[in-house]
């Protein structure tokens, strides 16, 4: 087993929380300053939190895949902690993107939810990564847990391109890409700039969140190792299976 580095419980840094608050403030000010859309009016402001949330879901699950692959290769638990931390944040932002999408859908489409390809695949991705987090709770053995989760972490990434290109591959109620497309952005420059500011701010927020979430993952691993080192043998540990092969 690869044990986590002992933290020696140095004081927990405060600056990631400050960075998160600052990034949140920048997004809010930028989103409220830009002119409303000519068709959607004020509702277009929802885009500046909905799109960055969806972007962070993609980024977080991409980092989960990277951490999982690195764990399977190097067998070092720090990569598993990276994958786990990113998956939890990814689930949070996927849930937020879905909730914000529903808040935008109701006044524009007239319904909270529809079984559109983009929405359905995003919901499936949300539940698969919830399953990833649940899978991690099936054992206290750190290496076994990391191995199981890493396999799922690598396989589950297939959903990200499926979700992203669903609006291109299938007829969808959800709008097609408006920024990254061969003909160039389909939006006014001020809206594109505001959206890029929001995406950058959310990315900074993700990095700050990851620093704190990985600190938590390291502490949790230390506690698990500590508990296991004080545990006596489990019931059944002393039972030796009979050698039945010798009798045949």
């Amino acid at each position: 087993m690869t044990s986590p580095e002992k933290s020696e419980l140095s004081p927990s840094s405060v600056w990631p929380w400050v960075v998160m608050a600052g990034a949140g403030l920048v997004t809010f000010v930028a989103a409220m300053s830009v002119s409303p859309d000519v068709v959607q009016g004020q509702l277009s402001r929802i885009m500046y939190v909905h799109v960055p949330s969806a972007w962070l879901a993609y980024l977080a699950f991409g980092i989960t895949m990277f951490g999982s692959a690195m764990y399977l290769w190097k067998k070092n638990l720090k990569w598993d902690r990276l994958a786990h931390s990113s998956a939890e944040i990814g689930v949070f932002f996927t849930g937020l993107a879905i909730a914000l999408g529903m808040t935008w859908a109701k006044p524009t489409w007239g319904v909270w939810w529809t079984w559109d390809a983009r929405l359905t695949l995003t919901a499936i991705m949300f539940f698969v990564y919830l399953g990833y987090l649940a899978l991690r709770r099936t054992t206290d053995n750190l290496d076994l847990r990391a191995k199981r989760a890493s396999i799922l972490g690598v396989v589950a990434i297939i959903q990200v391109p499926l979700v992203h290109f669903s609006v291109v591959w299938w007829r969808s109620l959800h709008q097609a890409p408006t920024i990254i497309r061969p003909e160039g952005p389909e939006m006014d420059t001020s809206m594109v700039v505001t959206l890029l500011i929001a995406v950058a701010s959310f990315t900074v927020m993700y990095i700050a969140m990851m620093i704190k979430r990985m600190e938590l993952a390291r502490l949790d691993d230390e506690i698990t190792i500590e508990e296991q080192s004080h545990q006596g043998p489990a019931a059944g540990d002393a039972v030796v299976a009979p050698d039945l092969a010798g009798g045949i």
Partner: protein
Amino acid sequence: MDPSVEWNWVLLAYGLTYGALVLFTTSIAVRITRARKKLVERA
């Protein structure tokens, strides 16, 4: 749609976003505090 109604939806979306962010980051902070306390008690 009436702009004031549009603003209500915008407020709902931003309230949801920042409310969820505060709850999630608080949950991380609380779990870190508990974990550190647990490790200190056992040291």
